[in-house]
């Protein structure tokens, strides 16, 4: 029964495919792939609809407001109203725009995000497309987002779009480094580039209580925080939403988009957020494993999606807290803090590995991470040279 509930979707798919007993094997494979695609799209489109309303409600609560509560019970039908509004809006293409590229940019933006969602294990035996080098594939398609952002910015023939796209390229390329370097320790310890194998490497419990998740090791915790920060940048979320900084760039690369193309950009941004959060869950938070041994009776996919929701809530929480930082601060953070810390994580993981994961290795890697962190804090803090600004008016 417990196992049945855990595998309910796998069993359902098996039943569906057993209707094709008469077909040749390659037809079954193709149909199986399409069933997976449909499932991933259905789940994440629903999640997108839900998060678009919950984000507004959470932000409202942070600011002591109610948030949307007019459409349907508790405002839950708000995405339907938004969707209808987006669909019936006029689709405006600027006269000077490169029309083909302008049309392709939103599609090129949303496709990699959906592709990236395919390699994440959502539960036991529930990876849509199990690829041996899944991690590599994830970051390869993830970096295609930069191209589509620049396509949108360039084809719009608008200075705001262009500036926004250039900022996007600058910050995304800079943060791709720490993002991928923080994944290295996990790949080193797990010894595989396959997301399923990485999740398996985090199985098991110490004394049946403490899970063997990578986030609970010193290098893992540091790498998780760095990965999370870098993923904020990669998904253009506050405080790194410079490419679409409303106060200076109208909406950045999305300035010249309206109607459903705009909605597609919006969707791509959220899909990117889901993908990168799902990857963070897979890499550091133990994937679909339960946090303690006796909670294993709850289906694995529930655990995955609860962890994903916690991360998504944190994304929204950060958006409700931090103001947008300047482009030079963003760049400085990437190259002077994130990158050295990411390499420190790699070294700490290596030390942990050669100490065979015992208590000594734990302490050693903690010492390495905290020493570098303290050192960097000292250096970067000292260089700041803050003083009271004296305003001089015309004399």
């Amino acid at each position, binding site marked *: 029964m417990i196992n049945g509930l855990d595998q309910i979707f796998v069993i359902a798919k098996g039943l569906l495919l057993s209707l094709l007993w008469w077909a040749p094997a390659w037809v079954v494979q193709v149909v199986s792939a399409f069933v997976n695609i449909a499932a991933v799209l259905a789940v994440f489109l629903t999640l997108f609809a839900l998060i678009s309303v919950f984000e507004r409600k*959470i932000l409202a*609560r*942070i*600011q*002591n*407001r*109610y948030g949307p*509560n007019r459409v349907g019970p508790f405002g839950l039908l708000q995405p339907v109203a938004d969707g209808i509004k987006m669909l019936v809006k006029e689709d405006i293409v600027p006269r000077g725009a490169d029309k083909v590229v302008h049309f392709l940019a939103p599609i090129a933006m949303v496709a990699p995000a959906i592709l990236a969602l395919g390699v994440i294990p959502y539960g036991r035996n529930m990876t849509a497309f199990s690829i041996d080098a899944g991690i590599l594939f994830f970051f390869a398609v993830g970096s295609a987002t930069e191209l589509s952002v620049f396509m949108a910015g360039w084809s719009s023939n608008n200075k705001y779009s262009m500036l926004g796209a250039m900022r996007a390229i600058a910050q995304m390329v800079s943060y791709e480094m720490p993002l991928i370097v923080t994944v290295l320790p996990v790949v080193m310890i797990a010894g595989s580039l396959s997301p399923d194998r990485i999740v398996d490497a985090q199985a098991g419990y110490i004394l049946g209580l403490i899970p063997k998740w990578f986030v609970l090791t010193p290098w893992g915790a540091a790498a998780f925080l760095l990965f999370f920060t870098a993923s904020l940048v990669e998904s253009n979320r506050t405080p790194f939403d410079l490419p679409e900084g409303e106060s200076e760039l109208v909406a950045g690369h999305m300035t010249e988009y309206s109607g459903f193309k705009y909605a597609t950009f919006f969707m791509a941004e959220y899909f990117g957020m889901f993908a990168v959060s799902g990857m963070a869950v897979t890499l550091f938070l133990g994937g679909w494993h339960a946090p303690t041994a006796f909670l294993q009776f709850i289906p694995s996919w529930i655990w995955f999606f609860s962890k994903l929701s916690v991360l998504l809530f944190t994304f929204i*929480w*950060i958006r*409700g*807290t*931090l103001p947008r930082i300047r482009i030079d601060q963003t760049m400085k953070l990437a190259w002077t*803090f994130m990158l050295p810390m990411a390499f420190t994580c790699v070294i700490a993981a290596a030390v942990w590995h050669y100490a065979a994961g015992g208590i000594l290795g734990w302490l050693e890697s903690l010492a390495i991470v905290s020493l570098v*962190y*303290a050192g*960097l*804090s000292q250096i*970067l*803090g000292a260089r700041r040279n803050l003083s009271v600004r004296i305003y001089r008016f015309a004399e």
Partner: protein
Amino acid sequence: MIGAGILKGMAVTARNFIGSYFEADRLTTIQYPEERDKISESYRNFPFLVYDGDDPDAGLRCTSCKICEKECPPQIIYIVQDRDEKGKALKHPKVFDIDISVCMGCQICVEVCPFDSIKMDKSFELSKPERFRSLLLHKSDLAKSNSYYHEISPTQATEVDEALAAAAAKKKEKAKTP
């Protein structure tokens, strides 16, 4: 340490987020169509005509003296005096129109009225499907009873009633002792 300020800020927003579910006084929003805030007694927007008794037309205090029509800064009051069959002017308006699309709520008509006949209203839900004719209020739309006036601004209405009663008594006194 890098990041300490961020944690402090996150704690503040978390406190606000959780607090908004448990502390009712955090949410100051009044959800308008369902909940209504109390309107201050001194609030005013557009004028209306007061009538005594039950008949909204015969009971009008307005004597069609046209002072308000002359004083109105945007010139939005239009009055035609009523006449009987013989053509004799009556102390009653035949037409009394106010174009509230132009009214600026200055209350000068109320200040100048010698008969306490025109007063300021508090109804603000005045959206109309059409701009011109539906915002031009006629006598029948403007006439509202004295009890309504008591309802919306009790202090002023009582003062007005006392003043009117005192004036009537004085008049009676004068009529008695010529």
